[in-house]
């Protein structure tokens, strides 16, 4: 520290690169140079490799499994089947949703590509060869691929293992293929609102089955050290601590003897929250063989067997007055969960936070009923870049609003403005039980409308439509709006837990003698840039430059317990813990400073990076000086050292929101859609790093484009999975991706220590309805009320053709 050249206060703030700084991502140096360290980069001495024999059928009894030829392949060590796991009681594992899932198919397969046997070999090539040689004999059974038929009287029973258990994890099951009925709100009241209304609209809106498809697939390395009894599990885990607890419960290895490490993760998007058969099999294999075992799935396995997302068939009904005031909302969802209920929702929320479905609107009465059913499809139902089932809810309400506007012959933006929750209504109690923390929806919407010049767009559209009718053009212009409200940051321990683990999160900060620091969190970055942004929170809270702070996550031996990263919860929960830990450090620092400056604590004030005597800023001690003092001076009444830990139980969720606008042109002869403009205004409260926010919005919008315009995992009537490779599963490239325009308003969260709400998932939540609304809007004047996603060339063309528009 050079006292000769005092720097200005502004300069000192700038040097911290704290909250609000567009600091470059510290992670990028290694990622852009190919020096990331992913699970598949981990190679331990003597490591074996596991690979799965998977089911070719969607529903069949296993008659026999012949492993002989495969075992004869040189280099094959062992082949596990359900028979081998049964004595350990590991042939089934608990899911995060209160169900059980077969680790290796036990007598029966329930979806194509289900895990049947686990081949353990000296390398992955030998394992793959041996997989080909395992012969499985099946007796085919009729599959259920249509969720609407799952509860038919004559439907085949899929889950024989639980067929006598008619009381499920979330209440009674009304059919052997039924999982739960989850109801929220006032059913009678909403039915009355519908009966009394001037205007009612109703629509069946399907959010198709898609997949998070992270670029890095799921995998792990299990390493059992038989000498000291310790199991180390490296894996693509979005929730390493929860994995450790689950692993301990199912293997009976004491939790202190398990170390779970999430190294660099190449994208998660919800796909890496759950526990997969590969993890269990690799662990068992390592326990049995005493050497490390790696399992990494390939792309097809990822798309067809590890957690899918959505697959919600949603019926919505809205009641409104002639003038367009919404008087009630009623919805029912048929939720296709596949063969096992492996959603990763908080325990009490089997349909996640779908009851955010009243959206951004002041709706007096509402009802939601969700029926979950089993089908012969892969399990999952995870939150693909959204808080639990929030994208589904936002899609439903944002489509329904447009449909209502059409019926009322009103502009959809005007209808939204008329029904928004008003600024002065916050904190707002929704009809379905949430307390929205803060917002100013009218300002955000009006800012967005001005930015895109909404009236001019509508005028242009009217001209284009007239030109189309005159036969001068074959393209139709669509304008799509979405105004979404998310619910993120799960969540308050009083109602949010996963397998009984409260959904708090944590941060531990340790200041080194020379004034640099390390912070450890219970979360884990999968590309979100935690090492960059959380260091910025610490920097602002304790006045140490972000550059001087190491951030560590993902190793359960060192990180404090936390529930991990998904549902935009890292900033709302662990970010809050970080600020609180920083404040604890500052409180102790204040005592040290008071001692050093020989004043009372109350005489000091905090200023950027120091404590100074009120009214005499020259008399101060910087955090750096205080840190050193904490290590080298005996301060009466204080322990040496400077560190703190905070476990943060959030008092409420946070409610980010945004106004999105999409403008596109549709070639009615080919179904090709050209997105010419996309504007996204996000309000995520306090903005920690604007550059990272922009990056998150770009990525999320690109995923939204993919979902709305092309992604789908489908099954034919035999239950054969389609779209399980990147040839068919739509991942847009830079060429298909439009230029994204981003914007913001800032209404901080009143209950979060730094006012931040979380942003990573907003663009996926708001983007999908904006795209879909734009496609629907293009045809609205021709009488279309709703056409299902994905809006790929074929479906768009089909829509035009049905309306008599295609040549």
């Amino acid at each position, binding site marked *: 520290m050079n006292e000769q050249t005092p720097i200005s206060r502004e300069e000192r703030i700038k040097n911290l690169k704290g909250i609000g700084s567009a600091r470059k991502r510290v992670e990028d140096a290694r990622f852009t140079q190919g020096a990331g360290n992913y699970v598949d980069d981990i190679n331990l001495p003597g490591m074996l490799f596991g690979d799965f024999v998977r089911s070719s059928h969607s529903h069949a009894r296993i008659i026999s499994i012949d492993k002989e030829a495969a075992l004869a392949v040189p280099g094959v060590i062992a082949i596990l089947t359900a028979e081998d796991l049964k004595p350990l009681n590991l042939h089934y594992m608990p899911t995060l949703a209160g169900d059980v899932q077969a680790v290796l198919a036990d007598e029966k397969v329930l979806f194509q590509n289900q895990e049947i046997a686990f081949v353990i070999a000296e390398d*992955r*090539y030998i394992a*793959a*060869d041996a997989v*080909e040689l395992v012969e499985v004999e099946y007796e085919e059974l009729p599959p259920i691929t249509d969720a609407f038929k799952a509860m038919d009287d004559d439907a085949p029973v899929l889950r024989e293992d639980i067929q006598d258990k008619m009381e499920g994890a979330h209440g009674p099951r009304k059919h052997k293929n039924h999982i739960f009925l989850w109801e929220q709100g006032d059913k009678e009241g909403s039915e009355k609102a519908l009966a009394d209304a001037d205007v009612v609209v109703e629509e069946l809106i399907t959010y198709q089955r898609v997949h998070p498809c992270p670029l890095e697939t799921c995998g792990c390395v299990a390493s059992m050290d038989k000498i000291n009894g310790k199991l180390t599990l490296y894996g693509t885990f979005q929730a390493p601590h929860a994995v450790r607890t689950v692993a301990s419960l199912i293997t009976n290895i004491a939790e202190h003897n398990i170390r779970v490490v999430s190294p660099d993760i190449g994208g998660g998007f919800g796909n890496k929250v759950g526990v997969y058969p590969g993890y269990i099999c690799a662990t068992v294999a390592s326990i049995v063989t005493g050497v490390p075992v790696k399992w990494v799935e*390939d*792309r*097809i396995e990822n798309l067809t067997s590890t957690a899918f997302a959505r697959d919600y068939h949603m019926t919505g009904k809205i009641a409104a007055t002639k003038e367009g005031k919404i008087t009630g909302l009623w919805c029912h969802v048929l939720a296709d969960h596949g063969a096992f209920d492996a959603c990763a929702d908080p325990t009490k929320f089997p349909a996640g936070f779908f009851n955010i479905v009243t959206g951004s609107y002041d709706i007096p009465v509402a009802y939601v009923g969700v029926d979950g059913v089993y089908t012969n499809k892969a399990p999952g139902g995870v939150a693909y870049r959204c808080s639990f089932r929030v994208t589904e809810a936002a899609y439903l309400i944002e489509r329904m609003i447009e449909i209502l506007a059409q019926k009322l012959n009103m502009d959809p933006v005007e209808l939204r403005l008329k029904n928004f929750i008003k600024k002065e209504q916050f904190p707002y109690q929704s009809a379905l039980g949430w307390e929205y923390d803060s917002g100013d929806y009218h300002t955000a919407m009006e800012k967005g409308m001005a930015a895109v010049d909404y009236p001019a767009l509508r005028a242009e559209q009217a001209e284009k439509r007239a030109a189309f009718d005159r036969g001068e053009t074959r393209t139709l212009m669509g304008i799509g709006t979405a105004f979404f409200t998310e619910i993120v940051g799960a969540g308050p321990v009083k109602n949010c837990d996963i397998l009984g683990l409260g959904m708090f999160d944590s941060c531990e900060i340790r200041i080194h003698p020379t004034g640099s620091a390390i912070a450890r969190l219970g979360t884990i970055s999968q590309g979100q840039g935690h090492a960059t942004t959380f260091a910025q929170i610490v920097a602002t809270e304790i006045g140490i430059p972000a550059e001087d702070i190491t951030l560590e996550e993902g190793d359960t031996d060192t990180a404090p317990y936390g529930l991990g990263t998904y549902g935009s919860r890292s900033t709302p929960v662990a970010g809050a813990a970080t600020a609180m830990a920083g404040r604890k450090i500052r409180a102790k620092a204040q005592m040290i400073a008071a001692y050093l400056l020989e004043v009372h604590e109350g005489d000091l004030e905090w200023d950027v990076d120091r404590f100074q005597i009120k009214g005499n800023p020259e008399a101060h001690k910087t955090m750096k000086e205080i840190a050193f003092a904490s290590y080298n001076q005996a301060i009466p009444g204080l322990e040496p050292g400077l560190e703190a830990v905070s476990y943060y139980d959030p008092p409420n969720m946070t409610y980010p929101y945004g106004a999105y606008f999409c403008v596109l042109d549709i070639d009615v*002869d*080919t*179904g*090709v859609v050209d997105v010419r403009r996309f504007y996204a205004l996000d309000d995520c409260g306090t903005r920690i790093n604007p550059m990272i926010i922009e990056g998150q919005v770009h990525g999320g919008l690109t995923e939204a484009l993919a979902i709305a315009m*092309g992604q789908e995992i489908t099954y034919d009537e035999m239950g054969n999975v*389609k*779209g399980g490779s990147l*040839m*068919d599963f*739509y*991942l*847009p*490239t830079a*060429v*298909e991706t439009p230029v994204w325009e981003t914007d913001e308003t800032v209404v901080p969260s009143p209950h979060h220590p730094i006012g931040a709400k979380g942003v990573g998932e907003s663009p996926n939540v708001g983007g999908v309805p904006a795209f879909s609304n734009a496609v629907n809007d293009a045809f609205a004047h021709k009488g279309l009320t709703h056409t299902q996603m994905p809006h*790929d*060339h*074929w479906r768009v*063309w*089909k829509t035009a053709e049905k309306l008599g528009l*295609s*040549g």
Partner: protein
Amino acid sequence: MIPGSFDYHRPQSVSEAVGLLKDKGDEAFIVAGGHSLIPMMKLRMSTPEHLIDIQDIAEIKNISIFGSDVTIGAFVTQAEIISSEALHGICPVLREASLQIADPQIRNVGTIGGNVANGDPGNDMPAIMQALDATFVLAGEEGTREVKARDFYEAAYFTARAETEMLTLIKFTAPAAGHGSCYMKQKRKIGDYATAAAVVILTMNGTTVQNVEIALTNVADTPLYAEEANRLLIGTSLDDASIKAAVEAAKAITDPADDGRGPKDFRTHIAGVMVERAIRQAATTAS
């Protein structure tokens, strides 16, 4: 996603390669750029025991042009086709179509020989070769023989090439100076095969069509040479009715599969749209 095991050979000449093909029989596959074959091997849909890598064979790496006679070696990459100004000067549709194949990384490695020999109806070059009336030179143990592109394709992955033969050269005469051409391809994204695609090579005599060659990609289990459509257009002034008749004739010969790109009727419809648009676009470049 892991191929079965195989032996690897790298012959230095066509005769050495042909000798290996004969020795190893149907267990041997030629690998050129590998961008069709290796994905198939990773899916274990193709399990060759021997791979014969032809990248060291100098004889099959050149583009030569004498007047309007063009010879392209089988190992010329798609990127090399794109960057050849001489080729572009006399036959622009090759660059235009090559630029619509996959993405730059794949085009740097994928070869024209692999693209036409593969026999995948999704490949773009076969229809171009049919429109150009190209000839494929096949080398076998008994020497070489020539097969017309229009006679080469039998079914998906079945061609007139015997397993013991290697494609060495592609020959064609460039269309007359002043011809117009277009390759119109609809796909879902970069790197995708065509939902449907059409090539049109058009020579005008004043305002009437002197000659036209239309061929289609990925709307049947082979590329389709649209003979009837051509016949219906020759001698017309490209009036709407004639174009419509040609489009209908082209659609009539399609038999696409239902796949992720859409059902049969849609892909046939798109084939018609591509033909119509390609005719109109080719007409704007013809003189």
